[in-house]
C-alpha cells in the first residue's frame, strides 16, 4: 500500500479568477505581502502495490486533470 498525491493546477496562462479572489481578500484580512494566489486541486489516493507509475500518470492525465487547461504532478508519499 502507498499513498499517492496528485496535485492539479490551472496552467500558468489560464486565468484563475478563484485564486485572484483569494489574493484580493488577503489584504482585507490584514495579510500583506502576498502578491499572487493560484487555486488548484489536491487528491490523495491509497493504492496497492499493483498500481505502477504509468497507471497513475494515466489516471492523473486522463481523469483527475484536464490537460487542455491544467497541469498535474504525481507524488508517492513514503509511509
Amino acid at each position: 500500500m502507498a499513498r499517492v498525491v496528485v496535485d492539479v493546477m490551472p496552467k500558468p496562462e489560464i486565468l484563475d479568477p478563484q485564486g485572484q479572489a483569494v489574493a484580493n481578500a488577503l489584504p482585507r484580512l490584514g495579510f500583506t505581502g502576498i502578491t499572487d494566489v493560484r487555486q488548484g486541486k489536491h487528491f490523495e489516493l491509497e493504492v496497492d502495490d499493483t498500481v505502477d507509475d504509468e497507471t497513475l500518470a494515466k489516471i492523473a492525465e486522463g481523469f483527475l486533470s484536464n490537460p487542455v487547461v491544467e497541469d498535474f504532478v504525481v507524488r508517492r508519499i513514503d509511509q
Partner: protein
Amino acid sequence: MSRVGVITFPGTLDDTDAARAVRYAGGEPVALWHKDADLRGVDAVVVPGGFSYGDYLRAGAIARFAPVMDEVVAAAHRGMPVLGICNGFQILCEAGLLPGALLRNAGLHFVCRDQKLRVERTSTAWTAGYADNAEIVIPVKNMDGRYAAAKSTVDELEGEGRVVFRYLDVNPNGSLGDIAGISSPDGRIVGLMPHPEHAIDTLTGPGDDGLAMFRSVLGAVLA
C-alpha cells in the same frame, strides 16, 4: 419522422425542454438514459444542460464516461449530428469531440440572462436554418461557461470558421474571443453554452430564436 435522442444523466435539468424543442420543431424526441449503451436508432442526439454528476471533479468530467457516451462518440465519428448545450457542451469537450474546455466564469457569479449572439457559421447540421450572421437572443445560465483553449486551438477554430456562435454586447463569462459555441470541422457536432431549447416560444422564453437549431437538424438528417 426524424428521431432525435435526448440524454438524461443524474443531474441533467434541461432534458424535458430539449425534448419539447425537438417536438416543436417537428421531430420525435427519444429519451436516452446515461446507463444504456444504446442510442435506440436515433438520427441525431442532443446532450442537454444541467449538472451531470453534480459537476464533481469538473463539469462533464464524469458524464463523459457514461455508457451512453461511448455510443455517442462512436456515432459522432460516423457523422451523426450531435448538439451539446451548456453542460452538454462541457461533456462534448471532456469527451474530446470538441476542442477546449469550459471554466469557472471570470466574474465568479452564476450568470442567467437573455443573451444576444451572432450565428457566424451556418454550414452546420444545427445552424443551416439561420441567415448568415443572424443576431439571435437566447438565455445563458451557467457557472462554468468561460471557453478556454490553447491559443493555437483558438487560432485554428477562427481560421477554419468553426466559431458558430459569438457573444454580442456582453461577454458573460470571459470566454476567449467572445466564443459562445463551436463546431467540428464537418459541422455535424456543435456545442454552445447558451440554451436554444429555452427560446422556442414567446410564451416561455425571450423569443423563438432557438427553434431554428432543432429545425436545422431535421433537415440535416434527411439530406
